[in-house]
């Protein structure tokens, strides 16, 4: 039972990472029908920016604002920097291409993914970088043999809060209505006077920013980052996106958490080595019987 609870908590934490990253995929997909392969590496970039702020601003910001101030500064810098990178990539590599077709944009996205990970390697070097002890909240609560870390709670809470806010923005505000309209039918939305570039910019700023926050959390949680991490997380998060049903926010959230739990439990109870085989096989089975994902809407076929 104890093991099960521990696995559950681990699964939820990993799931939150996936949910954060999956959201970026989902937003861009909903609006452009583009699988943004560069998204995983934007997440990696966020982890590196956060690392840089923590290391170099430790002396200045750390003494003025304390640990929590430093953490906040790191998160804000990572989110802003990565959002900027997302916007640049959208402007340079996607905007000239996606009016022509969404498949060429996929190639461009793959190119950007390769570019970004190698850019990270060129700037920060090929070595693993370590998030050091002194800028990570290390406390924990011990209940019997069950252990909850402060960091885990922080991760779970912020994923709930941030994704909740995003959900409210998209569902309840006028701008959110514009986002949904563009997602539904870009051309008609444009005819209705919706500034669709603004919606696209929103997706390419918010998605990477959330990814960056996940990147910094991953760095803190596992304490190490390297330039290829984005690719692995990107693949997993994309899986989570599809699992939940691509193009909707609660779907990304549910898909991420479910994938995290599935991983933790198969690894714990079946086999660590065969874990990913089970995860992917489960995904295939799910899609065979529910072809649009768990929360995906049944799309009427065009005739």
């Amino acid at each position, binding site marked *: 039972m104890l093991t099960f609870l*521990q*696995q559950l908590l681990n699964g939820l934490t990993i799931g939150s990472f996936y949910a954060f990253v999956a959201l970026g995929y989902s937003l861009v997909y909903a609006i452009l029908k583009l699988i943004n392969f560069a998204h995983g590496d934007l997440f990696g970039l966020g982890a590196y920016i956060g690392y840089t702020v923590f290391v170099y601003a430790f002396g200045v910001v750390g003494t003025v604002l304390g640990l929590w101030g430093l953490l906040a500064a790191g998160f804000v810098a990572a989110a802003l920097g990565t959002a900027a990178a997302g916007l640049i990539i959208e402007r340079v590599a996607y905007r000239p291409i996606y009016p022509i077709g969404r498949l060429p944009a996929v190639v461009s996205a793959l190119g950007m993914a390769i570019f970004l990970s190698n850019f990270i390697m060129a700037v920060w070097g090929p070595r*693993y970088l370590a998030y050091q002890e002194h800028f990570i909240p290390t406390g*924990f609560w011990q209940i019997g043999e069950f252990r909850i870390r402060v960091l885990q709670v922080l991760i779970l809470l912020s994923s709930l809060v941030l994704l909740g806010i995003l959900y409210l923005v998209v569902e309840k505000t006028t701008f959110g209505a514009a986002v949904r309209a563009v997602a539904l039918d870009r051309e008609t939305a444009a005819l209705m006077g919706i500034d669709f570039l603004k919606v696209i910019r929103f997706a390419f700023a918010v998605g990477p920013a959330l990814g960056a926050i996940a990147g910094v959390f991953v760095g803190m949680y596992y304490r190490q980052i390297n330039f290829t991490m984005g690719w692995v997380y990107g693949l997993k998060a994309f899986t989570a996106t599809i699992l939940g049903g691509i193009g909707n926010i609660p779907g990304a959230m549910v898909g991420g958490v479910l994938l995290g739990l599935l991983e*933790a439990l198969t*690894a714990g109870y079946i086999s*660590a*080595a065969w874990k990913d085989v089970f995860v992917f096989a489960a995904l295939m089975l799910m899609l065979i019987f529910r072809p649009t994902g768990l929360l995906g809407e049944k799309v009427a076929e065009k005739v």
Partner: protein
Amino acid sequence: MKWIIGLSVVLALCGWAQPILVGFQGPLTGPWAVEGDWALKSVQIAVEIVNARGGILGRPVQLVVEDDGGTPKGGTLAAQKLIAAGVKFVVGTYGSMVCMPSSELYEEEGVVHINYGCTRVDLSARGFKYYFRTSGRDDSQARFFVEYVIPLFGAKRIAVMHDNTAYALGVAEDVLRFMKPLLDEGKVELVYYDAIMPGERDYTPALTALRDAKPDIWYYTGYYPEWALLLRQGKDLGLDWKKIKAVGSNACPISEAVKIAGLDAVVGAMITQEPLPAFLVEKYPLAKEFVEAYEAKYGPIHDSPWATYAADAIFTLAFAIEATRSLDPAVVAKYLRSGQVIGEGITGPLSFSPEGDRLGVPYMLLICTEEGKSALFDPAVHGHLVGM
């Protein structure tokens, strides 16, 4: 007439002589770019040392560098590129599966190929004439673990974990092979044997299973990123590294593990290791010279044995060519195969078996001290760290 000869000799000594091309093949891109980077820097330092001493046969050494990206396909392309460039002596590469197809090309073309980071046993069982390695083999390390480390702690319940990569699986299987007599006699018991997935971030499930197996000693064969996470997450899970002796294999440099996992999780953990430059400086003069030159140029010395072996591959070539006074790869290869000690490199005396394996690769057991440094394990000094 005499002055012309004299002048040309002087010119030759001044470096007018044609340089000797030596190829370097390594993973400069891809997931193993770290090792490629270290190996390249080490090889460059070794070449500088050789050239500062007047080169080989009075001719300077010039490196030709090719990236193989850490893939078998990249390996063949890099090898072809080096062969096409007219290189007759090559140092490379990291990773047994990358090495395998490239070494066939070198063999066919009669290029002396000195391998620095491949430990797969059967690489030298192919009857090649031009293949050598300055590193040990998988089974030499496994043997050291079974015959030295297990008796040292009087361990009875053994746990072996690997990460399913070619190298780690090889070591793990060899441990089982060498341990078989002990297992049959009932002197030790294998309580845990499983694989984890590299690149994963969460190993709590595997560690929980490890905890429940209650081993005396836990041997992890694999690479440092995963080992560091295992140590950290094990500590967070409440595993006591004093009760369970945590031993990593030679691809788990302690300094990297400390950086990733934090000192509190790594202190007292041990690794079986080929000799690292930092522990060689007092023993071998060339090691001292190498480490000083490296640190003057690139900062603190890495603690990758493979990069050190890469530098030793350069010295192997230099010694062998000087001794035979020949640039003919066949002559040099024949001499290297003779089994005699051809000189003293960074990692000690250099000699090779007729199959091309390095003879007498020494191993050591290192421990992470309270200061987070690696130290040669000494029960009297470090016993308290592992509860001895």
